[in-house]
């Protein structure tokens, strides 16, 4: 029913050097893969192992590293700032990822139509894709300005006294989440639009004849039919928000006020590059990787694994 391929990996072909040939073309393989593998090894594999290794040491770049075993990991539990940053990361995921998925879906359904000028409107919807995280963070600082920004100006038209967004411990994280949703929904919307093309229009017509309203069609026909994409959009948004929110947070609040936007990635950065506690920062980074890997495993990989073996 659904033509959208998710993370499925099709088996590789055997066009060249099929088994009947005596020797495998190892020379060519080295030329094709060698340079990539060398760089990948130095700057990805070695750093992964390095991060794990570093997490067992105490090191400030100056004095020689001291082996401390698992102490760095135990220290996480006793560090209120670490606990806070894990909690803040979870909070951002909740109020960032879930709305991204829902907004992507609803807007895809909404603009899945044609009228004169739709191309221009779609381009506007897609524009947040191209602005960088840093540029948008600078821009949104002014958008959120309590006095001179457009949001509170518009709220004032309705006699609402808008909050001091980025200076408020309550509103700073929702403000960051709004920016990430704005930055991230266009990709999800594109994915949903592709999936909607494959929903059989006869289903919708039949529902209409039976007198189904918009909600019934959304909830019982469209939503179930694009479920594989929902899973995909969730993963993509999760990865995006976990990885890229650093830029936004760093420029907009730098973790403040009073740690209310101090997400894990920002705290790791501060530990490593301001406080020079490389070992402890690596332990937190390793913890972050475990969280990401667990979530990725939970959500996706059976398909990936099956495909790779294929």
């Amino acid at each position: 029913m659904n033509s959208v391929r998710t993370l499925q990996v099709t088996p590789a072909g055997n066009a060249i050097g099929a088994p009947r040939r005596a020797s495998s073309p190892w020379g060519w393989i080295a030329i094709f893969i060698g340079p990539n593998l060398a760089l990948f090894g130095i700057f990805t594999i070695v750093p992964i192992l390095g991060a794990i290794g570093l997490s067992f040491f105490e090191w400030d770049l100056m004095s020689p590293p001291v082996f401390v075993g698992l102490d760095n990991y135990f220290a996480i539990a006793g560090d209120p700032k670490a606990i806070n940053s894990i909690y803040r990361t979870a909070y951002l995921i909740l109020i960032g990822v879930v709305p991204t998925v829902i907004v992507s879906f609803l807007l895809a359904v909404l603009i899945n139509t044609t009228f004169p000028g739709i191309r221009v409107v779609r381009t506007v919807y897609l524009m947040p894709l191209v602005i960088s995280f840093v540029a948008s963070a600078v821009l949104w600082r002014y958008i959120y300005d309590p006095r001179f920004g457009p949001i509170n100006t518009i709220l004032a038209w309705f006699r609402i006294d808008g909050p001091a967004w980025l200076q408020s411990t309550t509103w700073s994280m929702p403000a960051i989440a709004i920016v990430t949703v704005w930055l991230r929904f266009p990709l999800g919307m594109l994915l949903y639009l592709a999936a909607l093309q494959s929903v059989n229009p006869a289903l919708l017509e039949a529902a209409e004849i039976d007198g189904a309203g918009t909600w019934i069609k959304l909830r019982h026909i469209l939503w179930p039919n694009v479920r594989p994409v929902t899973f995909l959009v969730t993963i993509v948004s999760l990865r995006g928000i976990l990885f890229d929110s650093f830029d936004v947070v760093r420029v907009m609040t730098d973790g403040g006020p009073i740690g209310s936007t101090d997400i894990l990635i920002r705290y790791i950065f501060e530990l490593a590059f301001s406080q020079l506690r490389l070992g402890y920062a690596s332990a937190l980074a390793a913890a972050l990787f475990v969280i990401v890997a667990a979530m990725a495993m939970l959500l996706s990989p059976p398909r990936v694994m099956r495909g790779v073996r294929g």
Partner: protein
Amino acid sequence: MKVVHPFRRALQIGLILFIGAVVGLPFYWLLITSLKTPVEVAAYPPTWFPGEFRWQNIPDALALLSTTSIINSVVFAISVTILQLSLVVPTGFALAKIPFPGRDALFWMFIVTFFVPFQVLLIPTFLIIRDLQWIDTWPGLVLPIVAQTSFGVFVFRQFYVDLPDELLEAARMDGANLGQIFLRIVVPLSRPAIAAYVSVTVLTAWNMFIWPLVATTDLDLRVLPIALSALVTQRSLVTPNLSMMAVLLSTLPIIAIFIPLQRYFVSGLVGAVKE
């Protein structure tokens, strides 16, 4: 024939336009603020259209960003894209079409590391670059980013898996070796995939922040996102109209590429994620 209720149709179009206005509001604000005078930008309540256009903001903002950081960003984006492309295209091809023992394990390795956040690699990568004495050098800035090849390997392997084996077999019968097959048949057939991949990679590289922040301190190697973020940390010195103009100028090149090449961006992003 499907009959659409005219009222519901109008409602839908109205909603599309309204949400479009909400999504586009930050861009509109960016545009008008960047052309305001320093006096108007401090006026309360804020104006929704500049009373007077201050074109002098353009050269002023360019001076703040510095020509060096603009050139650096262009060089950075182009070199990352070209180098990475020259690594991932052959690897993707080999992983899809040349059988060898350990091939699946290798592909597996690329996929698993796709889920490792770059922030995890940040500290060890910084130490490696420091030991190579590559801090504040072009190789130190570019190579660790070029090495993030897992996504590209994945994209091109998927693309080549769908390529018919007969095509390559026929060329081999004609006496072509693997290198000739790759350069004369495979690469020319890959144009759509390459176009999509290039557009996505240029975008990512143009916007990259955290690694340039760690790998460079030298003003001569500063890229645009770093220059931009510096504008707000010294906000008291730079008026909002100028920092908005700086944001606009640093985003315009990408928008200028994006609008005509929208199709490639879309297929690159959707295709890459979907495959």
